[in-house]
């Protein structure tokens, strides 16, 4: 007994901090993947370097990393196709962000309404289910015919692409709400609006954020299509116009820039999630 007590007194020694433990998470809850991802990136870069160094692939198909880096600096300095690099980037970012803001401010309320209201669901279900599996390139000609070749048609195209995942995830968020939580709030005297504000919205928030993240991803992948429409600015335009001259190195520069922004955005969304829904998976 005394022995047990003595061996158990380790923790009370101030110099010897107790070993802090926590529940084993399921899946990837908060596990550090950064170093692994970094190593993978370096490995891919090394593979790229080796493949081009030993000319396993013709340079027209796959430029060397050095060429791409040089081209990046050149584009940074002199611009490309009559606009500076920053003008290309900001044109694309402006389109993506305006589309994201519009898609979120329409998609979230509409999705919530569709999860809660028979009429909203009935009216909007058919058009949304009809249009959202369509590839944006398929309705791109219609956008041009209806809305012209200005900014509007590009932003509308991106908005349409981002809207569906946001709206569907908001609906799913409402559906995932446990009925006991609703009943608990009602028996505490919640009004309809209070129920929505304090129970439905926070419960749906994790799903909404996931939908936003997917939506932004879809937005980036639609960007090149949107900038096919008689654009003179934009990363997508830069890539398309470079491909016409078989300037693979510029194509790579463009792809790299999109990748960096998409990655930064995704990371930002993850921070936002950690800040807004820290309870996710803990209830």
């Amino acid at each position, binding site marked *: 007994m005394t022995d047990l007590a003595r061996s158990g007194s380790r923790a009370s020694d101030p110099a010897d901090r107790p070993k802090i433990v926590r529940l084993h998470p399921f899946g990837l809850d908060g596990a550090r993947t950064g170093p692994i991802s970094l190593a993978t990136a370096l490995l891919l870069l090394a593979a790229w370097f080796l493949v081009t160094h030993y000319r396993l692939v013709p340079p027209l198909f796959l430029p060397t990393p050095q060429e791409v880096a040089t081209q990046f600096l050149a584009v940074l300095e002199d611009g490309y196709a009559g606009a500076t690099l920053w003008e290309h980037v900001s044109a694309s970012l402006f389109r993506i962000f305006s589309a994201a803001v519009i898609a979120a401010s329409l998609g979230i309320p509409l999705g919530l309404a569709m999860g809660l209201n028979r009429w909203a669901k009935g009216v909007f279900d058919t058009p949304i289910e009809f249009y959202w599996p369509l590839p944006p390139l398929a309705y791109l000609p219609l956008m041009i015919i209806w809305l012209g070749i200005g900014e509007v048609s590009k932003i509308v195209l991106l908005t349409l692409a981002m809207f569906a995942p946001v709206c569907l995830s908001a609906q799913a968020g409402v559906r995932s709400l446990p009925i006991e939580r609703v009943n608990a709030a*009602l028996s*505490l005297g919640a009004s309809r609006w209070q129920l929505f504000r304090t129970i439905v919205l926070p419960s749906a928030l994790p799903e909404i954020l996931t939908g936003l993240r997917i939506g932004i991803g879809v937005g980036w992948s639609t960007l090149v299509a949107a900038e096919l429409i008689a654009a003179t600015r934009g990363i997508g335009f830069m890539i398309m116009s470079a491909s016409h001259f078989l300037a693979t190195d510029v194509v790579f520069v463009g792809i790299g820039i999109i990748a960096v922004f998409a990655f930064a955005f995704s990371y930002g969304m993850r921070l936002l999630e950690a800040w807004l829904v820290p309870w996710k998976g*803990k209830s």
Partner: protein
Amino acid sequence: MLQVRNASVFFSARDGRVVHALDRASLDIDANSIVVALGASGCGKSTLLNAIAGFLPLSEGSITLDGQPVASPGADRGVVFQKDTLLPWSSVADNVALGLRFAGIPARERRERAEELLGLVGLEGFADAFPHELSGGMRQRVGIARALATDPKILLMDEPFGALDSLTREQMQELLIDVWARTGKRIFFITHSIEEALFLGTNVVVMSPRPGRIVARFDLDFVRRFAAERDVRAILSAPEFADLYDEIRSLVHRPHAEADVRRMVLQ
């Protein structure tokens, strides 16, 4: 007074059959009483509680609280659920004060009232913790504090201690009796455990399944005795306790008990 009169509930099962979940149940819950519903699984206890809470409309019959018919959920009936329904994004204090927030009470006052209630259920110092940092028993206590916060006329509890270990369960039973003795709340309590029913109830109704109906009623005084003397051992070892235990046990285990509604008054 809460009155349930000839309450019947019919559900439709998945295959289209009709389930007679509750058959003409009648029940009074007076001031200062703890009415415990006891019965095997599926005998309609939760159905009855959901109807009283206003989550479920009746097929037939009526429920009134102080003369007012019960139609929808409201803050005059506090509910403690078996599953914990605390909001994971709110602190313990905010969870307790949720009903006060709905009532539009200012934050300062809410906080004071929440801390007071946390003291009542023995959770001083946990106001700023989050639900996932608490044990099951602690969460259930937060649930009780939350239900008490809006000062309801009656507390409805659906197997609130069902998921707890027996030690915590005993503590929670004593805590509930303390809360009841101090606040004088009416309580409707559901349990599977005969011992819990005998220990907590001023009235115990025994229910039987298919169709769910009340087959026996008992008036008891063990809980008042405990509130006065605080001697668990004396109560559990009392011969009346053992006799009643056996009697109810045979009632609950009889497969289709006849509707032999009877009353028994001790002392």
